[in-house]
């Protein structure tokens, strides 16, 4: 992995279309601005990972879906 040290206010450019701005550093928190093409989604890693895993689980369902209207089970 490439590691680059930057100061607040400096930027990193990835290719011609993606720019990361180091906006603020406070304690262990870094605020990063991201400019990217609209077609390129940007996610917080932990949300992306959770959704990826949930999609895989939904796709792995080995059961038949119930037929007919669904009635909520009695609590």
């Amino acid at each position, binding site marked *: 992995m490439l590691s680059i040290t930057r100061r607040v206010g400096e930027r990193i450019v990835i290719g011609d279309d993606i720019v990361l701005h180091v906006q603020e550093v406070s304690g262990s928190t870094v605020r990063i601005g991201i400019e990217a093409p609209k077609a390129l989604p940007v996610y917080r890693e932990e949300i992306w990972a959770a*959704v990826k895993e949930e*999609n895989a689980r*939904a*796709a792995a*369902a080995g059961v038949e879906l119930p*037929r*007919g*209207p*669904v009635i*909520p089970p009695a609590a």
Partner: protein
Amino acid sequence: MSPLTVHSTRFGTIEIEADAVLSFPRGLIGLGGSRYALLTTDPESPFSWLHSVEDPDLALPVTRPWQFFPGYEIVLADDEAAALGLSGDDPADVWVTVRAAESIKDFTVNLRAPIVVTSGPDGPAAYQVINDAPGLKVAMPLFAASAAADSGTAAA
């Protein structure tokens, strides 16, 4: 439009109407794919299948969230909504993925990452988005809202 033949491990070879195919310019998160068909095997059922047109093995059960979560709201970052061409005045068709189980009471749905269908210039385009509304999980019990209403402790 002529029907499209889709090969499915689960359903065999099926023919679907071309307008049931949704393009996914970004794919499904972590699964990719650019074209999926919405298959309804039982019109009485709230569940459908989002079936890959490209991969016979790839299909996810989906449902529309509002039957089970009447107060469900989707909150998108402004730039995300703009990128997808969505606005609050333009209600889109929305689906959520379902994790099916042996018993319906163990079904969960992903309210955190709904699939929003927009009317694109080349037919329907769908995007799985991150919903920033508070309190939503990727695995929400399907009957969480009705259970909360029954016990008088409505979910926030």
